[in-house]
């Protein structure tokens, strides 16, 4: 979200930007370890207080090889995005070998209380489907967890495969980060 200074003469390029920030760096994950799968978006120190809120949207696809395997969807947040909160650990029974699934991950972060001993709630929803008969949607999160607004915080999507049998690959194409309040 653009931040303007008093007295600034704003040009058309600045005025016509949208309400979010976009990153189109592609991330690829083909391992079992939880891996960064979006930009680590920055929430600067002292930039938030109680009632500040953000939405992060990540979009991409994942492709199975000759074996359907499970996959693990997490949110990274806090300093350096190091705190990991699960959205879902989906089992292989949700998927079919040799298919391509498209996905969205949408995360909402709301600061409940500002300060060094502050708190925030974080919710994430993953939704995915293919052109066949597979679809899975799940929501999970953390409620009023420790969140220090006086230090630099980050927010990102984390992903890992339950197994890499058959060589599955997830690719996220872009993420959009919005400050809502």
């Amino acid at each position, binding site marked *: 979200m653009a931040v303007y200074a008093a007295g600034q003469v704003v040009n*058309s390029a600045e005025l016509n930007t949208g309400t979010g920030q*976009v990153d*189109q760096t592609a991330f690829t994950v083909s391992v079992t370890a939880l891996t960064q799968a979006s930009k680590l978006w920055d929430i600067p120190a002292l930039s938030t207080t109680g009632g500040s809120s953000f939405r992060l949207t990540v979009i991409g*696809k994942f492709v199975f090889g000759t074996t359907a395997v499970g996959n693990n969807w997490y949110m990274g947040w806090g300093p350096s995005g190091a705190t990991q909160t699960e959205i879902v650990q989906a089992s292989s029974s949700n998927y079919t070998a040799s298919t391509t699934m*498209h996905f969205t991950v949408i995360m909402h972060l709301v600061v409940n209380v500002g300060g060094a001993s502050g708190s925030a709630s974080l919710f994430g929803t993953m*939704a995915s*489907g293919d052109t066949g008969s597979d679809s899975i949607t799940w929501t999970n999160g953390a409620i009023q967890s420790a969140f220090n607004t006086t230090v630099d915080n980050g927010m990102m999507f984390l992903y890992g495969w339950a197994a890499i049998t058959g060589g599955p690959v997830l690719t996220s194409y872009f993420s959009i980060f919005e400050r809502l309040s």
Partner: protein
Amino acid sequence: MPQYLDGQIVSDINLNANGAQVNNTVISGTFTSPTNITTLWDIPANSTTSRSAFRLTAVGTTSMGTTGLNTQWGIGYGPNAATQFIIDQEAQPASAVWYYTVTVWVMVNIGGSGGQAYIMGQIRAGQIPNNSVVNWTLGVLPAAWNTTVDNKLSILGNFSASTGTPVFTNNCSVLERLG
């Protein structure tokens, strides 16, 4: 979202507007082929480049008649929204009323006449009482997208037949420019 020009004197009303446009025209009918159930939202020629992003949301209901049929939702995009992509098709029981939201994201990845965009759609629907639910996500990753011409974006809806006179009713749509 309004488009501003260099040198334009922008009022506080302009600056304090939300980054979204709302159209609350109700579009209703017994559609048997993919039909625009939202307004044709305009993305003007040369108004986007790499990293331009949009989110389109529509809400409404599908009311099945005396015969169960397939209900489907899709995306119209490109010049005149003439390129159609189906997100999902679901069997809707007779006499069931589904409340739905459809969300579509467009992110221009490459600008120009040979450009491309990532287009993703998501349909969620449910019925009261809670005996049916729909969640589906599918898109075009990537799609050809010429930023030098006028493009439109819409959401499509239809039934597999008109038997029993089912009714699609879209109540409103919201277009947001995100990037």
